[in-house]
């Protein structure tokens, strides 16, 4: 139903142009950085998979290792398929971005096929994960089997991606009138997407005399309180801060390691770090909501913009540390001190990284991706060699901070 558009379709040309334009958005340096990051993640996966696969081969033979690799690759294909299905379903229900599609003489199936193509681009990320695992099996799994598994993975990824978009479309269509023809039902889905909202009013504005950075901060707070993406992003850190504090209400147990005092401390710390990460994503969302032509026309410097966002990062860190201090009463004062110091340092580093990436990278999705990759590398580095993750994280903060003064120029180039 939502397979590729028919031969000769203008959509083929559109897809080619879109791919070319999107690639052109990345300058050479950014492309090299992305390749480097993907290579580092591949190396991490190689590092993690090589030893267990070799152990399997020694214990049960090369075919057991091949089977394990097949399961991993299958899971990647399946996981990617799930992501694609979710994205496609969301796209179909949302107002169609781009031109006034419904005013064009295009069959609804072709439109759905176009959005299915957009959703399937996510498969590239799944594809990027596989090489690390496949390379880790060289010399462990027989070469012909490895070649077969690689080809099988490519096929499975392709099939999962296509199946995912078809299933998503059926799921969305199931919510429409079943009596209508599928094409009409698709049209109904597109036409019923919420394009206009009911007229809302906001509370009267507050006129205050403030320095520029504080005016920006007030504006950010107003945005976070409205029906915005930023507010949606704020929910995750709030929930995670509460969860990281609620962990301490669990009674410590000596029988189960996870619920021991050390285990609770680890879970609380991990949840708090996740809270900091999601708050950094919120800060990136705020930066992404800044209309470049608006901010750049105002008497605002990089320092004011940085100060307003950094103030939020510091405020969040204080709230996080305060909440942990109050809730982690079972800990001895010394252990609590260590926890809070580490938490403050990590939270500040992560949230400031979000501030810097949000200010200096071309768009919020790119900045979010860089944040995720940097934190993933920090974590991987820490797992491989303890504390090295800190070096990676702090290096990233310093490196990104050096780009902040260029905000004015970067903003103008967006």
């Amino acid at each position, binding site marked *: 139903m939502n397979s590729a558009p028919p031969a000769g379709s203008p959509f083929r040309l559109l897809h080619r142009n879109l791919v070319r334009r999107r690639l052109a958005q990345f300058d050479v340096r950014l492309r090299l950085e992305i390749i480097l990051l993907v290579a580092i993640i591949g190396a991490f996966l190689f590092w993690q998979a090589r030893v267990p696969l070799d152990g399997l081969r020694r214990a049960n033979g090369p075919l057991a290792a091949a089977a394990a690799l097949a399961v991993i690759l299958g899971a990647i294909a399946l996981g990617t398929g799930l992501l694609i299905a979710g994205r496609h379903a969301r796209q179909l229900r949302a107002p169609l971005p781009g031109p006034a599609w419904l005013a064009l003489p295009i069959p609804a199936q072709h439109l759905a096929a176009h959005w299915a193509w957009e959703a399937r681009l996510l498969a590239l990320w799944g594809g990027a994960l596989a090489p690390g695992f496949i390379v880790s099996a060289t010399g462990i799994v027989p070469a012909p089997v490895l070649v077969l598994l690689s080809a099988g993975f490519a096929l499975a990824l392709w099939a999962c991606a296509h199946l995912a978009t078809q299933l998503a479309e059926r799921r969305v269509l199931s919510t429409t009138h079943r009596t209508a023809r599928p094409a009409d039902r698709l049209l109904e889905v597109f036409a019923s997407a919420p394009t206009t*909202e009911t*007229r*809302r*009013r*906001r*509370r*009267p*504005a*507050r*006129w*205050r*005399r*403030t*320095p*520029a950075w*504080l*005016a*920006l901060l*007030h*504006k950010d707070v*107003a*945005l976070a309180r*409205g*029906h*915005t993406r930023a507010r949606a992003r704020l929910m995750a850190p709030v929930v995670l801060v509460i969860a990281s504090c609620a962990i301490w209400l669990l009674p410590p147990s000596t029988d189960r390691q996870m619920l021991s005092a050390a285990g609770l401390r680890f879970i609380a710390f991990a949840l708090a770090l996740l809270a900091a990460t999601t708050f950094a994503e919120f800060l990136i969302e705020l930066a992404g*909501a800044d*209309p*470049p*032509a*608006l901010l*750049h*026309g*105002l*008497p*605002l*410097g990089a320092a004011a913009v940085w100060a307003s966002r950094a103030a939020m990062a510091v405020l969040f860190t204080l709230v996080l540390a305060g909440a942990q201090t109050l809730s982690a009463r079972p800990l001895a004062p010394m252990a609590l001190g260590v926890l809070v110091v580490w938490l403050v340092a990590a939270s500040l580093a992560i949230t400031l990284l979000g501030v810097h990436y949000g200010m200096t990278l071309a768009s919020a999705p790119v900045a979010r991706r860089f944040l995720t990759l940097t934190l993933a590398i920090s974590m991987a580095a820490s797992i491989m060699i303890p504390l090295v993750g800190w070096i990676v994280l702090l290096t990233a903060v310093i490196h990104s901070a050096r780009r902040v003064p260029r905000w*004015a*120029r970067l903003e*103008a*180039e967006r």
Partner: protein
Amino acid sequence: MMELIDLTRSYGSLRALDGVSFTVRGGEIVGLLGANGAGKSTLIRTAAGLQAPDHGTVNIAGADLSKDTIPAKQRLGYAAEEPQFYEELSAAEYLAFVAGVRGLDPAIARRRAHDLAARFGLSERMNEPVRQFSHGMRKKLSFLAAILHRPAVLLCDEALEGFDAEAALAAKNEVRALAATGCAILFSSHVTETIERLCDRVVILHRGCVARMLERSAWGGTREETSALEREFLSVIRGSAQGPPQ
């Protein structure tokens, strides 16, 4: 006063501005005319600091835009052709934000914003999110934000396009009033009639170069406040406020 000195700006191999130089004196309204792609918007965006020139200098009331960026932008107002906003903020919140960034006195800024909103027909919608605004209302809001602080230099890029006749008249009056207080105004428009009636001088851009500069005496028109058609229209609009036509 605004000075543009030898401005050059290229997009790849396309030279959008090629050594553009001219001055807009305080109290003067200079029209910017040119065909599509002549470089009008590039010139105004460069003068507003939205993009850096490849070469050349922009002086805003004595401040070099590239060196004294913040002081220069304090004295500058810019009404964009395609204005961008924080869509979720209300018009009043947006103006309060702009006033805050510009460091205006809150009471004065609020009073002026309300006064301007009334004159431009936005009073009823000031507490609604900008996302709900029509194209014309967005243009009005952009214009209001540009003149809220009574700038020393005002840049208007197709600023009146999308305005209804009453608001267009109010805008033209506001532009004239600002000029009377010494504001230097660069006014870009496709509508030659507006330029003809509003401006003291005209700069014609062609392929990124200043092709001609004309003084008002060159086209011989007079500064009319309203045309006969506008007067007719306004009499209908203002008459309808008193009751429906019989």
